[in-house]
C-alpha cells in the first residue's frame, strides 16, 4: 500500500502546487520521485512527530495542502494533542497517513503496533478516519481526503498486501464499498483485513452460507445506511479489523446498533485484537492468529453464531 501512496501522491503533486509532503524520517528513497517533481515541497521532519503535525497545521492555515507520513503508531499516540488542537480544533485540512498500521509491523513489537489509533482519533470532532482495504482503494481515498473540508487520518498497511478490488472503486468518505452481496451474513472489513474477509466469506459460502463483504474504508464518518441495510436483512454481521476490539469499527457499529429500533435484528460479532498488549515475538500471520484474525477462526465463529 505504501508504494501506491508514494506513487499517487507524486501524481497529485504534479497537478497541485499547494501540495507539501512531510515525513517523520521514514520512507528512504520512497519519495525520490516526489522530490524530483516537487522540489522544495518535501520535508523530512526528523524523529519529531509532534513538531511535524504542528508545522503542517501552520502550513495548512497559510493555504498549503500538507500530507504527513510516518509509522502509524508514532504519528498518532504521541501526537494526539497536536492532532486534537492544531488540526481538529482549528479545522485544518491536513492529511495524516499512518503506515504499517495495525499489526503490519508485528515483528517489531508493541512499540510499533497501532491497534488503538483509530479508537483515539475517532473521538476528535471533525476528523475523518479512513482505512482503505487495498491499494486500489487507497488511491481514490487519497483524492477523497483532499476534497474533505477537515483533517483526515488515513491508515494504511505496508507493502505487498493482496489486492482485492479488480478495478479502482468509487471511494467516498462516509460510504462503504460492497464487494459481494449476502443474505445470511455480512462481514464488514476495515483496512487491511479486507482480503481476510473475502477468504472467510468464501469459506462460509462453501458451507452453504450466503455471506456478503463490504469494505468499510471510512470508519468515521460511518456508513450508517449500509449498517441499516445489513442489520435488517442478515442474521449475523461481523466486523473485522486489525485494531483493538475497543474503540474501532466493532465499537462504532455496536454504538450505532444500540440506538436502533428492533428491526435491526442481526447479531453482531466483532473481530479485532484483544484488550491486552502482545508480548510474544510474532510476525503478522502469527500476530493475527493470536488475535483470532484468521479466515478459519472468523468463519468458524460466524457459523457458530448462526447456529446459536
Amino acid at each position: 500500500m505504501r508504494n501506491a501512496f508514494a506513487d499517487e501522491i507524486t501524481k497529485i503533486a504534479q497537478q497541485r502546487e499547494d501540495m507539501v509532503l512531510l515525513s517523520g524520517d521514514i520512507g528512504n528513497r520512497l519519495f525520490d520521485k516526489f522530490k524530483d517533481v516537487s522540489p522544495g515541497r518535501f520535508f523530512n521532519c526528523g524523529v519529531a512527530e509532534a513538531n511535524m503535525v504542528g508545522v503542517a497545521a501552520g502550513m495548512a492555515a497559510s493555504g498549503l495542502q500538507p500530507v504527513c507520513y510516518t509509522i502509524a503508531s508514532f504519528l498518532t499516540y504521541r501526537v494526539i494533542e497536536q492532532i486534537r488542537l492544531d488540526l481538529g480544533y482549528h479545522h485544518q485540512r491536513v492529511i495524516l497517513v499512518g503506515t504499517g498500521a495495525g499489526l503490519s509491523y508485528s515483528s517489531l513489537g508493541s512499540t510499533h503496533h497501532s491497534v488503538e489509533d483509530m479508537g483515539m482519533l475517532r473521538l476528535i470532532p471533525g476528523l475523518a478516519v479512513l482505512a482503505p482495504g487495498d491499494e486500489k482503494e487507497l488511491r481514490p481515498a487519497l483524492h477523497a481526503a483532499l476534497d474533505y473540508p477537515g483533517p483526515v487520518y488515513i491508515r494504511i498497511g505496508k507493502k505487498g498486501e493482496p489486492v482485492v478490488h479488480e478495478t479502482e472503486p468509487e471511494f467516498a468518505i462516509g460510504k462503504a464499498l460492497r464487494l459481494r452481496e449476502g443474505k445470511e451474513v455480512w462481514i464488514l472489513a476495515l483496512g487491511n483485513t479486507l482480503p481476510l474477509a473475502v477468504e472467510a466469506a468464501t469459506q462460509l459460502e462453501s458451507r452453504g452460507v450466503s455471506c456478503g463483504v463490504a469494505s468499510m474504508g471510512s470508519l468515521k464518518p460511518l456508513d450508517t445506511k449500509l449498517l441499516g441495510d445489513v442489520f435488517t436483512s442478515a442474521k449475523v454481521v461481523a466486523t473485522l479489523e486489525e485494531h483493538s476490539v475497543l474503540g474501532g469499527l466493532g465499537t462504532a457499529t455496536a454504538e450505532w446498533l444500540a440506538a436502533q429500533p428492533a428491526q435491526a435484528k442481526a447479531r453482531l460479532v466483532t473481530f479485532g485484537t484483544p484488550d491486552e498488549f502482545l508480548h510474544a515475538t510474532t510476525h503478522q500471520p502469527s500476530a493475527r492468529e493470536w488475535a483470532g484474525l484468521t479466515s478459519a477462526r472468523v468463519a468458524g465463529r460466524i457459523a457458530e453464531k448462526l447456529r446459536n
Partner: protein
Amino acid sequence: MDHTKLKHVAAELRGEVIELSHRAKTPHLGSSLSCIDLLVALYWGFLRIDPKKADSADRDRFILSKGHAAPALYITLCRRGFFSPQLLADYAKDGAALAEQPAPHCAPGVEWATGSLGHGLSVGIGMALAARIQKHDYRTVVLLSDGECNEGSVWEAAMFAAAQKLGSITVLVDYNKWQATGRSEEVMALAPLRDKWEAFGWESYEVDGHDFGQIRAALVRGELPDRTKPLAIVAHTIKGRGVSFMEDDNNWHYRIPNAEELAAARKELGVE
C-alpha cells in the same frame, strides 16, 4: 513612536489588563504584565500589519504561544484597532468572542488558538515555510513563556527551524523566571537559556524585556536580508511588571485584584 510614548502606551495597557482581570475575575495577571512591553515593541512599529486588512496574505504573523497571557494580546489588538472595544467589554462572559484563552478565529488579529503550551512555535514554523514556498516576504514572530520551554515540542521545533535555515522566524521568550508553581530555573534548569537556543542553531540575544531600545535592536536583526538562521530573543522580564506589589510575586499567577488593589495599581502606573 519614541520610547516615552511607548512607555505611556504600555502603562495604559497594563492598567487595562489589570482592570480586565478585576472585572472578569480571570487569572494569569502576572504573566500578562511581564510581556506587555514586548507586545508594544512588536505592535507599535515592528510588525507589518494593517488592522483593516487583518487577513492579508502578506501580513507579518504573530503567535502568542503562551496563551494564558491572552488578555495582554486582546488589549493590544484592540488598541491597535483590530476590533471594537465592545469585544473587550464582553471578555470572558458567556457567549463572548474573547475567552480567557483564545479560540480559533475568535477575533481579527488572533492568529492561533493557544493555551496548551508548546504548540505555537511549530505552527509558526509552518507559516514561515509557507511564506518561503509561496514567495511571500512576511516574518513570523512567536512569543513563548519560559515555563513553556519545558515542553519538548519547543525543542523539536527549534532544531527543525535551524535545519530548514529558516531566517524568517523570530522567537521571543518572556523570561520572567517563574512558572505556575515555582521558579522556572528550579523546576527545569532552563539556564543558560540563550546558550540553549544558540546550541540549537539559532542566532540568539539576551535583552532587558522592558527596554524598548534593546527589544527593538534585537528584533531588527531578524530583518536583515538573506538570513539563514532563525532568531531567538531571550527577554529578561519581571512577572507582574509595573505594579510594585505584584512584581516578582508568583501569587499573581492566579490571584485576582480587588477594587483597592486595582485602584492602587492604576495610581502607581499613572493611568488613573
